[in-house]
């Protein structure tokens, strides 16, 4: 029997993820991805006011803290055929953009970096050499030898204290860490800088949404009014704060994030050759220039790429019951029509049926259901979603800035375009789209200002706010491109209340288990792609590929009906 | 053999509860303001005379028989039942101390018509045998003799003769086809025959065709006072029969207050059909004659006069303006009492109270209020338009040793009448 490696918890992600891998020697044969936590949000949403749904849905995830709110209000707006004012659309774009950049930077430095950066090795760095390295990469001002010396001293103090805290038990010294000490020190300094930076940039959410995490949203527009003569509305002072945030974002992306990605990637080029997986990519598209009903104006285009074929982009329709379906063959759910069937989210079900081993357990039974995540499929095919899908879509659709940027990056790293289909390709795509977005944010901001300047201060459309104006039954889909990929919420409204609510989130696409036909999810496929472990006790390689997806597992897990509870109770008493 | 039992009384109460009664009881918040409108309370200070309190038996029947909560309370034994003892105790409150003057009905902030309910409550008192003995006697006389005071037609007939002899006027009797048929109260026949003479004088001057009816002359209705619709119906039926026999167009109610109520308002309901004739109060008729110029007066008296509104006529009968117009025909120095018209205070003897011997002391006590009202005006003559009021006030003034002449308004008009002949 082959060795089985279990990583649980997978840390530096959102949520609860478990990876089990069957080894062929030191190579991963089969990988299994399991979401191990379930809450029941979709069940909880039933019977509630659709206008309230965003707040519940938003709590699906506190990291991509606004995407579910956005998807939810868009679903309600789609169901009610409810247009929002231009200002509201721009403000939402700004909030989404800020979310992306914030999330990607945090992912890179605080979740992903420690897969590549050996913190302990940084203690051996020469601050002066580090300064030289930093200055060779960008014009970022914090790059003096003294600065890095302070960082090193702080780190040394910390390590000397004997309390390593979050850095304890890392795989420090692992042979797969290849950065020189100076690069490690620079990365540690930027790890800390990014922490300070992100506190500032989320203020954009606070200005428009009152707080972050979990800013407030509003069906029909945005809650923050615009009034240049009021202190308690979006006014000149607020706008200038927003501009400051945008500037700060652009500077950091251009001068720190992008150079660091390139610098680190250049030491790990072998990681541009593995971890690809499915080769199918899906995008719903997002960031409208006019309205959600006009996909031609989206910054991120919609479409499906199959088998790495960038020459052909397939159309996608989220309302089409033949296109998107969720399967539960290997998930702990029951379907009324049987576990083999696939359901479109409009008629989706979430009946909990835990059939896994009783905790505490060592291994999951991977032939049976083994995850709280469902397996969504597009026309029966498993899909990868996320930054890589988006960048490929932009590339395939001939988006010039993308082609230029990707070209420049690949050229600097001396890699072919195919290198994007990989673990580091995914990570690089995240950086690339951050740059694209940061530049676009300035455009939305300018539009917002000129719109206000033109006398339009509307932020909320009153038309369909009152439930008395709603039809007795309607349904709608709200979608967005979340930082982690295509996100859709589907809502059915009956008698002014939510009759059904389903979300298929990026990490459901990526982290889902095998379907009935044995087709693995994106994580699983990626891990099965050329992964050999240098030390099976320290499976750093698995973390690299899994983290390259930026898992968001609370998102990925859907939830239950009371009927499911009963089934589970039987299971427990057995 | 009597059939007056508690059960019969309760059934009568039950019969009497109607939507207004239920609405009234539902609305009462025990604010006690009705007490301030009742001279039995204001003059004695005894809270038991609070008008709404007088209705406790009827209220209990309503609550226990017509409300969910009451029925529930009854079921659980929490309800206080209506007993013979209760009714006996309440006789004083429902008869001796209530003239049904209706003043309380006018002040109730939630709009309860208390006198309406007292009238109804008395039905139950009668049916259960709890009406005052004195009034029972009057009722028996009214039914058997034809008049509560025992006046037979013989007495009237001799009065007529006497008047015709003294004045030379003609008093028509049993003239079929006459337009007007005046009714009289026995008091007028016995105590104030001037009233009949005045009628004759005025009608002659106005050229009115009229007649008295030998078997329907008594206007008073003890059935109304005692609170028995059955008895009241019998008495009203006599008048209707007489008027129909003579085919008159109008029946004239005398000045007497409750007579007006019985014939004008309750009559048709009691016999169960509209009258084929109209009922008009003598003051209304006189006012009509005045307005149409058919009667005139002269030599207006400069004597300071005031007018006592009989409750049944004014507050409860709507005859308020007519007497004032008539007063102006006879007096150049008419003064109103402080509370007059619909706000007048009762003489204290209405609603059958004057007939109850046991109530005399109380009646005199509460007369204080009227006495003060009269004295406040400084009038040297009191005019009224109800024989009962007139008697009660006269007795009251006597009790308090007040010298003040009283006169009926009709007589006063006749006195100042400009006669052609």
């Amino acid at each position, binding site marked *: 029997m082959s060795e089985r490696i279990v990583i649980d918890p997978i840390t530096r992600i959102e949520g609860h993820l478990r990876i089990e891998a069957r080894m062929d020697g030191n190579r991963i044969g089969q990988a299994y991805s399991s979401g191990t936590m379930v809450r029941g949000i979709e069940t909880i949403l039933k019977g509630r006011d659709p206008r309230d749904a965003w707040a519940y849905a938003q709590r699906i995830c506190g990291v991509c803290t606004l995407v579910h709110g956005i998807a939810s209000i868009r679903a309600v707006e789609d169901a009610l055929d409810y247009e929002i004012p231009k200002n509201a659309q721009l403000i939402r774009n700004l909030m989404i953009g800020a979310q992306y950049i914030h999330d990607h930077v945090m992912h890179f430095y605080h979740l992903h970096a420690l897969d590549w950066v050996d913190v302990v090795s940084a203690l051996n760095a020469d601050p002066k050499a580090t300064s030289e390295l930093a200055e060779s990469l960008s014009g970022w001002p914090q790059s003096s030898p003294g600065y890095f010396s302070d960082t090193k001293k702080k780190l040394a103090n910390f390590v000397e204290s004997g309390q390593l805290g979050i850095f304890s038990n890392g795989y420090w010294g692992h042979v797969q860490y290849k950065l020189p000490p100076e690069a490690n020190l620079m990365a540690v300094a930027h790890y800390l800088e990014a922490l300070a930076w992100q506190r500032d940039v989320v203020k954009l959410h606070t200005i428009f949404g009152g707080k972050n995490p979990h800013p407030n949203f509003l069906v029909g527009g945005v809650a923050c009014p615009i009034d240049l003569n009021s202190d*308690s509305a979006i006014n000149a002072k607020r706008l200038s704060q927003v501009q400051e945030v945008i500037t700060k974002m652009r500077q950091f992306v251009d001068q720190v994030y992008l150079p660091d990605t390139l610098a680190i990637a250049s030491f790990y080029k072998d990681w541009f050759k593995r971890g690809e997986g499915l080769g199918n990519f899906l995008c719903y598209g997002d960031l409208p220039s006019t309205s959600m009903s006009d996909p031609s104006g989206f910054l991120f285009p919609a479409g499906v790429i199959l088998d790495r074929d960038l020459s052909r982009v397939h159309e996608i329709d989220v309302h089409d019951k033949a296109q998107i379906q969720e399967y539960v063959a290997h998930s702990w759910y029951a379907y009324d029509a049987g576990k083999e069937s696939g359901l479109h989210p409009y008629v989706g079900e979430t009946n909990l049926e835990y059939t896994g081993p009783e905790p505490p357990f060592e291994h999951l039974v991977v032939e049976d259901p083994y995850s709280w995540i469902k397996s969504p499929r597009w026309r029966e095919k498993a899909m990868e979603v996320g930054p890589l899908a988006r960048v490929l879509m932009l590339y395939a659709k001939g988006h010039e800035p993308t082609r230029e940027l990707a070209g420049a990056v690949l050229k600097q790293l001396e890699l072919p375009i195919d290198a994007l289909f990989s673990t580091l390709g995914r990570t690089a795509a995240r950086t690339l789209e951050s740059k694209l977005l940061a530049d676009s944010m300035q455009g939305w901001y300018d539009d917002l*200002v000129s719109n206000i300047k033109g006398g339009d201060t509307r932020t909320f459309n009153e038309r369909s706010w009152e439930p008395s104006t709603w039809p007795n039954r309607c349904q709608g889909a709200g979608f967005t491109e979340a930082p982690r990929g295509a996100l859709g919420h589907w809502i059915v409204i009956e008698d002014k209340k939510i009759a059904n609510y389903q979300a298929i989130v990026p990490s459901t696409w990526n982290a889902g288990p095998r379907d009935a036909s044995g087709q693995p999810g994106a994580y699983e496929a990626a891990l099965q792609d050329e992964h050999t472990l240098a030390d099976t006790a320290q499976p750093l390689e698995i973390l690299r590929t899994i983290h390259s997806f930026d898992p968001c597992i609370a998102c990925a897990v859907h939830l239950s009906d009371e009927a499911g509870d009963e089934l589970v109770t039987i299971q427990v008493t057995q | 053999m009597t059939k007056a039992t508690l059960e019969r009384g309760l059934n009568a109460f039950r019969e009497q509860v109607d939507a207004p009664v239920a609405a009234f009881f539902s609305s009462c918040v025990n604010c006690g303001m009705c007490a301030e409108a009742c001279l039995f309370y204001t003059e004695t200070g005894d809270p038991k005379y609070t008008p709404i309190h007088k209705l406790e038996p009827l209220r209990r029947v309503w609550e226990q028989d017509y409300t969910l909560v009451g029925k529930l309370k009854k079921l659980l034994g929490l309800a206080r039942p209506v007993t013979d003892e209760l009714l006996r105790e309440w006789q004083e409150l429902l008869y001796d101390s209530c003239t049904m003057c209706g003043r309380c009905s006018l002040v109730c902030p939630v709009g309860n018509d208390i006198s309406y309910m007292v009238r109804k409550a008395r039905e139950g008192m009668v049916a259960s045998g709890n009406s005052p003995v004195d009034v029972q006697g009057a009722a028996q006389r009214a039914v058997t003799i034809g008049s509560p005071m025992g006046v037979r037609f013989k007495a009237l007939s001799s009065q007529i003769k006497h008047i015709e002899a003294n004045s030379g006027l003609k008093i028509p009797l049993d003239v079929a086809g006459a337009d007007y048929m005046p009714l009289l109260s026995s008091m007028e026949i016995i105590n104030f025959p001037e009233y009949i003479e005045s009628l004759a004088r005025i009608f002659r001057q106005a050229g009115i065709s009229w007649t008295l009816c030998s078997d329907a002359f008594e206007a008073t209705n003890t059935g109304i006072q005692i609170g028995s619709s059955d008895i009241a119906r019998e008495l009203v039926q006599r008048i209707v029969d007489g008027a129909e026999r003579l085919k008159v167009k109008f029946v004239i109610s005398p000045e007497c207050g409750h007579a007006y109520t019985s014939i004008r308002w309750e009559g048709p309901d009691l016999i169960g059909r509209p009258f084929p004739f109209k009922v008009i109060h003598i003051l209304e008729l006189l006012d009509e004659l005045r307005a149409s110029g058919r009667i005139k007066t002269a030599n207006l008296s400069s004597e300071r006069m005031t007018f006592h509104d009989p409750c049944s006529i004014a507050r409860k009968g709507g005859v308020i303006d007519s007497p004032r117009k008539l007063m102006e025909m006879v007096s150049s120095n008419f003064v109103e009492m402080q509370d007059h018209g619909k706000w007048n205070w009762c003489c204290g003897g209405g609603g059958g109270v004057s007939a109850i011997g046991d109530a005399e002391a109380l009646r005199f006590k509460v007369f204080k209020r009227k006495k003060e009202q009269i004295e406040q005006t400084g009038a040297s003559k009191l005019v009224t338009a109800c024989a009962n009021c007139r008697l009660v006030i006269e007795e009251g003034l006597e009790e308090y040793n007040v010298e003040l002449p009283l006169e009926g308004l009709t007589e006063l008009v006749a006195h100042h009448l400009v006669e052609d002949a």
Partner: protein
Amino acid sequence: MDARDTIPILIETSAATDGCFQNTRPLLHEIAHALRRLQLEGVATTLDLSAIPFGPGDERQLIDFLGKGEVSAKLEAMGESLIWESRYAGVWIVEHRSTSSERLAFQLEITKLPAILASQPEDIAESLLMLREALESPQADGTLV
């Protein structure tokens, strides 16, 4: 040039009625009471402005109202701190910022001199030691003394 500079907006002065959510007035009364206490009893008061429910503009209005007096000081210790006396003598504004310029504390001190400005006994003792050390140990390069 920043796009925001093109916003054709005239920000009204802090006296604009919109800026007043009526939260500063009671505070000014409190300051007056504290000043009285300082005058009569010599007792100093510190008001933590982060605990005051300010509306947008309220804080600016308060600070504008208090104005700048004769003294202002800048402290460099774990980030910058700005301390200045308002035009009402005895009313000091103390703002502590972190090394990354985030505001750590914002206080009004009604006192003769904010304690943070005074040299701390421990630091004085330490500097005495250091100075003695410097005086006693001969300098290698002889630059001093």
